[in-house]
């Protein structure tokens, strides 16, 4: 049974970014081919040519849920202002809250994240916080009003997969009722499947699809992977053992030695 995201039932557990594709046409095809139900977007300075309006039209035509981000923000003030601008432009209360704390790893600054999440939640936003796998930070974000948590799998764009499956599993166990999304670090469909097998409710990825040699095929592969992982989780997988356990019955084996 899938959880809702601020009351919204998503058609599937894949959230797909819209950046870095070879062309807008390939971006559009990747979305349509995969069936991803959520598109992350951003706000940037508008040029004289009105590039933003063309992009907006294409995203609107996809008919997906739009999740604007505060990518690149390093302070609470900057993130809160960006969120207000995003709410007006994209006409949604959803905000993917990113507060970047470290230049190389793009690790979230969780202290500012909690503060910004509280300000925005009190102002009616529905916050999707990009966070670490820290349980205490997760608790603080929930207290601040968040109803979704999005821990990183690995640093943004790194494609390393799930760096800390132990902590992600602990997070799932600690917050059984909270929609959890692995956001960032996915490189391969197997990484996305692994996140779903852990019991996560969705996976958010961008670079793994956009920078693949064939983004459309990779988008489809990712959708297949999250579907398989989710089904596997629902099917209650077996525990791993250290030693072999014969699967073929021993009883009735012919005596031939």
């Amino acid at each position, binding site marked *: 049974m899938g959880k809702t995201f601020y009351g919204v039932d998503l058609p599937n557990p894949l959230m797909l970014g819209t950046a870095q594709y070879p062309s807008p046409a390939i971006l559009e095809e990747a979305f349509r081919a995969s069936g991803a139900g959520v598109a992350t977007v951003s706000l940037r300075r508008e040029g*004289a040519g009105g590039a*933003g309006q063309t*992009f907006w039209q294409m995203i609107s035509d996809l008919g997906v849920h739009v999740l604007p981000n505060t990518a690149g923000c390093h302070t609470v003030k900057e993130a809160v*202002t960006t969120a207000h601008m995003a709410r*007006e*432009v*994209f006409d949604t209360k959803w905000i993917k809250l990113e507060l970047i704390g470290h230049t190389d790893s793009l690790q979230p600054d969780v202290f500012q994240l909690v503060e910004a999440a509280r300000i925005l939640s009190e102002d009616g936003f529905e916050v999707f916080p990009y966070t670490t796998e820290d349980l205490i930070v997760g608790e603080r974000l929930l207290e601040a009003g968040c109803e979704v948590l999005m821990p990183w799998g690995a640093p943004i764009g790194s494609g390393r997969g799930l760096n800390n499956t132990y902590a992600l599993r602990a997070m799932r166990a600690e917050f059984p009722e909270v929609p959890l999304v692995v956001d960032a670090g996915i490189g391969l469909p197997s990484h996305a499947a692994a996140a779903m097998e852990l019991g996560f409710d969705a996976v958010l990825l*961008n*670079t793994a699809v956009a920078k693949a040699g064939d983004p459309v095929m990779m988008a489809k592969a990712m959708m297949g992977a999250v579907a398989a992982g989710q089904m596997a989780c629902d099917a209650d997988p077996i525990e791993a053992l250290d030693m072999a356990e014969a699967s073929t019955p021993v009883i009735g084996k012919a005596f031939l030695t």
Partner: protein
Amino acid sequence: MKIVLNGEARDVVAKDMAALLEECGFSGRVATSLNEAFVPAGLRAVQTLADGDRVEVVAPMQGG
């Protein structure tokens, strides 16, 4: 009036945010800020500008 628009120095005749957007050819879905504070669309017409103001005009863009 000399202002800074999206990081570039500009000399404009507009005296408020709404007029500025029109003068500079912005239309459609944009959001605005003045001196790092959000200016909602409904307040642009009454948001006056002063010399040295820093204005940002942003629009939908690709993001992860």
